[in-house]
């Protein structure tokens, strides 16, 4: 990185209007992205606070810190906050919002007002769900399984469900905005196969959001309707079918995992190319792998129901399809590694996060194959093995990608550099803390410890203490960036337009970019990731 004296551009999106109003009513996609950054970080903190309570309770075998009923409320709210208000919006609403117009050479998204509306819908939805915390909590698990959620639970199901229903429209509108933007707003010369893979990943994600989220919304309305009016939709006592709820819920909620992981994979593609200074190996394969994951991801939901009474034949079909969806994911991982091969890989902070992502996502993905096998799933389902598996994918994968992206584009977003050493240390601390937290859960789950209980037999204590200790290391890892990134806002070195020497339109404008992104509309005459051919033995 060059340390020559560069100055901040005199005008940019951050100093174009300094009043609170200029932020809260902004139509600039970059400012809306930062509004999301603040809100999403807040909900991550809320979700994390509930995680702390869970790990404290599980440090001892006895249910001594929380009553069983309160423990139900705590792990439910941990899941709801993390899934619906952190993981799903995190990458698309923050980095997608900020980067898609920049990467395709547009002035903004296609519908800037709709973009602002999406943010406020998200905000209002979160208020309803937060209200449920103080009005009796929610004890159904984030999955709202019926008939417990509709007839038995005494907690605040309706406000929580309403909040998630409202929040769904935020995701739908963001997805719609991205699809139209990518179709209609590309700069001259920016053909589909010159698009950065980050954009392809978001296109695939947007398809899932537009096609899947309405089903979740309707399902949640049906839960509320059964709860309020006593309809016999899911309650077997009055002719309903609880498995029907699971079909409808997972039709959205399995693809929702891809809403979390696909954008993170898009980030990884960008970071690998920039760190290895090479074109992504098999660009078209990686691009179509995103679309493949989005489509096949809709055909596998029944793997959540192998033990809930689904037919053996259907389980077989869903099992096979679940194996197939692993193929495009593996294509991506192999292509990233092939990209690094013989590249001049520079080990700055983003690359540390890439390495973390690949390590954790590989374990998360491979254990997914264990669970897609029907026989093994019968033993492992509803144990801590499942908990470990989806945390490896959703936390190890998505958050590693998200933080890698934040570190990579931070100089573009703020115009300043953070301390790279601290960045690398945070990635290592998170990687170590994460494995210490969740690897023991694979073991304890395999040994038979069920999820969602506040007490457990004494022989499981060692593994649980390891997990709780790991969680505190992980917490340090997550808190570190908060401090050094905040510090960099005022004291960080001025980054310059392109501190990582990356290609891509977002690096062809100032850091931070002007409100209109580019002084003149760029004309693209080069392919994606057109890095100069590396010289043998050359170190950047």
């Amino acid at each position: 990185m060059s340390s020559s004296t560069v100055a901040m551009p005199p005008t940019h999106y951050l100093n174009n209007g300094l009043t609170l109003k200029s932020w809260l009513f902004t139509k600039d996609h970059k400012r809306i992205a930062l509004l999301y950054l603040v809100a999403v970080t807040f909900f991550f903190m809320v979700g994390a606070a509930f995680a702390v309570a869970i790990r404290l309770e599980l440090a001892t075998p006895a249910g001594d810190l929380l009553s069983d009923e309160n423990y139900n409320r705590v792990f439910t709210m941990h899941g709801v906050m993390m899934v619906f208000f952190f993981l799903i919006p995190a990458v698309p609403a923050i980095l997608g919002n900020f980067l898609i117009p920049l990467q395709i050479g547009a002035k903004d998204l296609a519908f800037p007002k709709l973009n602002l509306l999406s943010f406020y819908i998200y905000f209002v939805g979160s208020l309803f769900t937060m209200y449920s915390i103080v009005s009796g909590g929610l004890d159904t698990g984030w999955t709202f399984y019926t008939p417990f959620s509709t007839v038995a639970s005494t907690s605040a199901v309706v406000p929580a469900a309403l909040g998630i229903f409202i929040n769904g429209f935020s995701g739908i509108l963001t997805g719609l905005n991205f699809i139209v933007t990518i179709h209609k707003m590309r700069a001259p010369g920016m053909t589909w196969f010159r698009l950065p893979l980050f954009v392809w990943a978001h296109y695939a994600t947007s398809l899932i959001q537009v096609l899947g989220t309405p089903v979740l919304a309707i399902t949640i309305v049906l839960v509320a309707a059964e709860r309020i009016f006593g309809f016999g939709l899911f309650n077997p006592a009055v002719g309903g079918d609880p498995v029907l709820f699971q079909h409808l819920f997972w039709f959205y909620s399995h693809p929702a995992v891809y809403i979390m992981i696909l954008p993170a994979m898009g980030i990884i593609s960008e970071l690998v190319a920039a760190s290895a200074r090479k074109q992504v190996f098999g660009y078209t394969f990686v691009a179509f792998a995103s679309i493949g994951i989005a489509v096949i991801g809709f055909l596998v939901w029944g793997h959540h129901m192998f033990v809930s009474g689904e037919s053996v034949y259907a389980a077989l079909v869903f099992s096979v399809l679940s194996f197939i969806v692993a193929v495009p994911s593996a294509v991506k991982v192999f292509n990233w590694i092939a990209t690094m091969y013989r590249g001049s890989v520079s080990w700055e902070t983003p690359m540390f996060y890439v390495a973390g992502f690949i390590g954790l996502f590989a374990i998360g993905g491979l254990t997914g194959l264990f669970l897609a096998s029907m026989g093994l799933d019968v033993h492992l389902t509803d144990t801590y093995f499942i908990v470990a598996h989806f945390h490896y994918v959703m936390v190890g994968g998505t958050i590693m990608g998200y933080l890698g992206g934040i570190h990579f584009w931070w100089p573009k977003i703020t115009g300043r550099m953070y301390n790279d050493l601290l960045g690398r240390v945070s990635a290592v601390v998170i990687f170590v803390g994460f494995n210490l937290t969740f690897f023991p859960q694979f073991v304890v789950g395999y040994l038979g410890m069920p999820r969602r209980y506040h007490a457990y037999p004494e022989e499981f204590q060692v593994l649980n203490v390891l997990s709780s200790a790991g969680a505190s290391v992980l917490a340090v890892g997550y808190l570190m960036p908060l401090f050094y990134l905040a510090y960099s806002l005022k004291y960080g070195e001025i980054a310059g337009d392109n501190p990582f020497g990356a290609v891509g339109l977002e690096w062809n404008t100032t850091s931070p970019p002007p409100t209109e992104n580019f002084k003149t509309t760029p004309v693209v005459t080069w392919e994606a990731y057109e890095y100069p051919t590396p010289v043998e033995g050359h170190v950047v």
Partner: protein
Amino acid sequence: MADHSQHHIVPKSTYYLIFTALMLGTGLTWWIATIDLGAMNNVIMLSIAVTKATLVILFFMHVKYSPKLTGTVIIGAVFWLLIMLVMTMNDYFTRDWLHFG
């Protein structure tokens, strides 16, 4: 979009015609409900409903006069709905094919 300039104006009579067809469909649904057709009950009822929905989408929602892309999007959405229904029925219709144990 280029198609904006050639905004199609639908004569009122078309709307009345479609409205009449929808009302007839409703009447037909009511009348058939009084006859027990066994397994065909659902098939016939749903066929009438789908026909009515198609009429609404094509004429009242102007899809018949819209660019092809609009139609493609709607077909995509309906196809996704079919995925949900078919794969769910794939469970319900095969419950007694095989049993554990």
